[in-house]
């Protein structure tokens, strides 16, 4: 009898304890969602505000009604910008520069990473460390000496490098090549040795081994590095600001900042539209290839 009641008591006691654990877990979950929602609001507020403003006419903006709402939505900012020849030139310059920089970067860094990760030569380990160190050298340290060097080249050979959009194709690899090489070394080093031994036995040369074995196997890494190189060359602001000045030689970020802001008259509807259109390509890539994007971000520190 006593045993039975003790058992009953025990059973009666257990469910509430389980319930309180579940309640604690539920509460933790609630607060997690609550703070996540708070931060998502904080993080998405500027882009959403850009979008809201881009739908307003300049009359509605200067009327100072509720800035967080559109009362008379209009697409005139978009049609105005997209029919402007100048803006389309910015877009074209940006696109050509980014695509070329990505291609050059990927060829250089895949070749170098293959040789550093697999083939090894005298000093290759030092070079791998050096690649990582150059990745840490910021563009803000390099732009002044590069500017002077370009001026010097102009004096000596007569080739004008400053104020041409294509000079950015020479400059951006300083930012993209070290990091892409670094993460490709990590990806190539993680490929098992047996694979290249099998390829060697089948009579493959180094080039075949790279093209038929390494590149297909490390494709996720290559996509991640490509995305990184594209975002960096699309977003850079310092080099084009320092090296290009004429309106037809500008790329998108600098073009929007310098030409849409004219003196004290800020046409905010158009500026926000331009900024949103400038942010669109990286955002679209991110939306479709999020996992590769994140893999590229974390590879720098977790691999290597």
């Amino acid at each position, binding site marked *: 009898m006593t045993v039975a009641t003790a058992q009953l008591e025990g059973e009666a006691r257990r469910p509430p304890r389980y319930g309180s654990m579940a309640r604690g877990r539920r509460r933790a*979950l609630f607060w*997690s969602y609550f*703070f*996540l929602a708070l*931060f*998502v609001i904080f*993080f*998405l507020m*500027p*882009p959403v*505000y*850009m979008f809201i*403003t881009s739908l307003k006419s300049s009359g509605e903006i200067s009327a*100072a009604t509720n800035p967080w709402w559109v009362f008379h939505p209009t697409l005139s900012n978009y049609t105005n910008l997209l029919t402007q020849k100048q803006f389309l030139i910015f877009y074209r310059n940006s696109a050509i520069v980014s695509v070329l920089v990505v291609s050059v970067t990927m060829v*250089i860094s895949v*070749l170098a990473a*293959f*040789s550093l990760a697999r*083939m*090894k*030569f005298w000093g290759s380990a030092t*070079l791998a*460390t050096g690649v*990582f*160190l*150059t990745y*840490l*050298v*910021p*563009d*803000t*340290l*390099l*732009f*002044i*000496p590069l*500017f002077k060097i370009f001026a010097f080249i102009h004096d000596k050979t007569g080739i004008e490098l400053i104020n041409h959009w294509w000079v950015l194709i020479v400059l951006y*690899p300083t930012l993209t090549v*070290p990091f892409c090489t670094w993460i490709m070394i990590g990806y190539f080093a993680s490929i098992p040795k047996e694979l290249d031994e099998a390829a060697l036995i089948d009579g493959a040369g180094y080039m075949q081994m790279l093209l038929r074995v390494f590149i297909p196997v490390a494709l996720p890494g290559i996509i991640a590095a490509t995305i990184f190189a594209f975002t960096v060359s699309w*977003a850079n*602001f310092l080099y084009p600001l*320092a090296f290009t000045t004429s309106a037809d030689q500008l790329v998108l*970020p*600098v073009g*929007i*900042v310098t030409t849409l802001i004219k003196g004290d008259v800020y046409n905010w509807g158009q500026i*926000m539209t331009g*900024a*949103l259109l400038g*942010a669109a390509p*990286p*955002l679209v890539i*991110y939306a479709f290839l*999020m996992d590769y*994007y*994140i893999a590229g*971000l*974390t590879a720098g*520190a977790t691999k*290597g």
Partner: protein
Amino acid sequence: MAEAVARDVRVSPIGRRKTARALVRRKSLVAFAMALPLIAVIAGLVVYPAAYAIHLAMLNKSMQHFVGLGNYQFLFRRFIEVSNLSWATFWSWSFEVKLSTFAMVVEQSVLFAVSAVIFKAVIGFVLAHFVHNIPQKGQRKWRGMLLVPWVIPPAMSTLAWLWLFDPSYSAFNWIFTRIGLPAVPWLGNPYWARFGVILDNVWVGAPFFMIMYLAALKSVPEQLHEAAAIDGATWLQKIWYINLPMMRNIIAITALFSLIVTFANFDIVKILTNGGPIDQTQVFATWAFMKGIQGNDIPLGASVSLFMFPILAVAAILILRNVRKRTNEI
């Protein structure tokens, strides 16, 4: 016959070794050739300009002759001036301190980088835990939304912040006046302007920390948490005694890396305040740009930008040590 076989046996190893050595030499030659474009880019576009910057920093403005450390003497002239200092003013804290423009640049660069990195790291750490805490199924969606500030080019998103901080149409001030708070002079007042550039930088960088710390958090073995739960550990103890030690390396690498990038930041300050009001938000990069490119004093600009070098070197050594430690552990 037997002799022939014996000769074969004697000869063949030598021959094989020779071809093997030739193969190795050929292999390292091919490897070197493959790495040559990388070496050219690094040597020509990074190492040489960096060394040239040191040379440039030691020339006079017209770059005609060598002045040694003259530019640095100029930068440190009247660095800090303390006037009206006596026992009485010292205790009542009423003596006057006047900083030169360069001293303000140093002060603001350090303040900007250190406080921004601390805020980014704390927010990233907390957010990573919140994302890790919710069910696996929804994590992708939340992570996707939280990373958006990092994906937008900083120059573009800073324009949005500039518009949010607008003196007459600020959308924040609209909310503040609605709920009865005074309007804030966002970029007009030096202190608020400093707050503004730090806020923008934290907004851009915190998602990166979140992603890195989340990746580190995923690699903490679940058994440790179970064992801690059985021992009756609270959530705070789990974070302090399990997560923090396990994530230590990534925390350090990410923070040091971000410190370098934040010290070298240009876009945000340039667009948001352009160094103003009265040079109060000027950092190394923007001041070097102003002096070197816009002011046409390339040596002075190079001297200023070289101030980023010591912090860079220290951080790089620390990161490298951490990365090595990690690879040894694996």
